[in-house]
């Protein structure tokens, strides 16, 4: 379920995320689905998501100081933003990403 990216050569203007999950924990699964839904909706052609399963790479998460799951880090565009939770509050995410909220309707 990974869609790995090399964050160094990301396409210009693309949104790059790192999503830290804990295996198939319910809120991890929800976060995964929510992040994909948001990306498809708001920047369908310009996003990259790297998924890191803490169950498989715990020491990497430690090195990257990610301790609660789920956590998503927006790496690009700068500044980096860290969001914790299952991403069910879409408005909070859009605000954090600096996107206009509720564009449709």
């Amino acid at each position, binding site marked *: 379920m990974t869609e790995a990216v090399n964050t160094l050569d990301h396409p210009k203007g693309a949104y790059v995320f790192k999503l830290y999950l804990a295996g198939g924990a319910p809120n991890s699964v929800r976060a995964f689905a*929510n992040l994909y839904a948001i990306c498809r909706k708001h920047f369908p052609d310009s996003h990259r998501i790297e998924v890191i399963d803490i169950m498989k790479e*715990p*020491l990497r998460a430690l090195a990257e100081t990610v301790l*609660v799951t*789920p956590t998503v880090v927006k790496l690009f565009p700068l500044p980096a933003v*860290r*969001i*914790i939770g299952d*991403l069910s509050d879409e408005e909070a995410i859009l605000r954090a990403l600096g996107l206009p909220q509720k564009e449709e309707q």
Partner: protein
Amino acid sequence: MSDKPQPAATEKIFSGIEGFDDITCGGLPVGRTTLLMGGPGSGKTVLALQILVSTAMNHGTRGIFVAFEENARRVAANGEIFGWDMPGLEKSDLYFVDACVQSDVVKSGSFDLTGLLLVLEAKAAEMGAKLIVFDAIDVLLGLLDDPTAEARELYRLHEWLMLHHFTGILTSKVEDGQPAISARYGFMPFMADCAVMLSQRIADRVAARFVRVLKYRGSPHALNEVPFVIGPHGVEVGSSNGVHPEPQPFDERVSTGIVRLDEMLCGGIYRGTNMLITGSSGGGKSTLAGAFVEAACCRNERTLYISFDENSRDIVRDLGTMSIDLAPYLESGLLRMESIRTEAASSEEHFMNIKRMIKEQHPRCVVIDPLSALARVGGGMAARAVAERLIYLCRNKGITVLFTSLLEGSDPHLETTTLHVSTISDSWIQIYYALLDGERNRALSIIKSRGSKHSNKIRELIFSDTGVTLADPYTAGGEVLMGTLRQEKETAASRQKAGVQ
């Protein structure tokens, strides 16, 4: 829930903190959760860190410190203040996880501790850690902003510790409520296997710290609140456990430094006992203490002189005017003089300080001048308990102690001391002013001296530039003669003697 069989008796690990292992009857429960609760500045973080450090140093038990509130580097740096070798320990025995929640983190929906526990599990396996501290766990849980979720995560943590047989220490703030614990985390002590409450209170304008074991599943523990201090080497708990082997009594006599007083005491006081000198202000208590110190140093015995609120140099200078010269012993290091400001600390802290000095110097004789200074800080009951513990500490170490106590009030026959320590003194000498025929003269009498047929006479105490001594007793009409009257009688007696010859 873990399906491991429950051990019959609670397995424990020594915290290595003096006094703390006494009140917990042997330390922390292994493979269980210990909760340290307290208000801000109550010493939770220091205590948790010290347990981690001392178990690593004493037993080689490796540990992880997860810092949720304070920067992990700063926590480690705090350890160095207490003289702990943090860089050395961090090479392999200790690991710090910085789990501070940055203020710019955005929260969207629910999260849990699964990730953290996975990370810790991997790190613990990698380094072989057995002890894990979660410092200020309430900060992270507070982010959940949902009491049910907070409780769920705490239980998750608790069960995870049990499953992996990790010994966990959780610290958590409590609202300043006393003795009640925060309603929000009210269930925490119920969940934990061992719950410890730290508190700080002001008594007589002096702050004092206390620790109490609220519960300890499957183990006895001290029920009472016990004072503790955070000293230069970390936490020291004033244990309530007073059971010590009785020291072997000495037959040797120790000089008081005044020949005639030794005669009155049938050769001095027994080694390893204590002597109390009471008197009003300016009565000469410190001078007698000085004579005792000089005699001890003359015998080449390490001596510790603790004075409250008086400068050591002043004491040495004043004693010098009476031919009691302590300067050479100070220089050689045989004598250590410490001047302590009474108001600077609680009586409990004073006790810990003095205890530490005794531990460092191993003196054979100790002077505490005046012990009654303790009564000024920390309230009567606390000060009395401290004074008693100080006396017992010295007795157990076979140290001969001279302590002075200021008498309140002017009635010299009202033989009460501020701390009521006269009951635990082995010898008790009273100095007072005798007002007779327009003169004020110092008088000395021995009120008690255990194991000695001491003199019952009241003697005049004479301070002169050649030293301290007691005058020969002269009585007339049932009164002890002092000052001019005594001198006249003395002159007459010596003339008579000369005339006879």
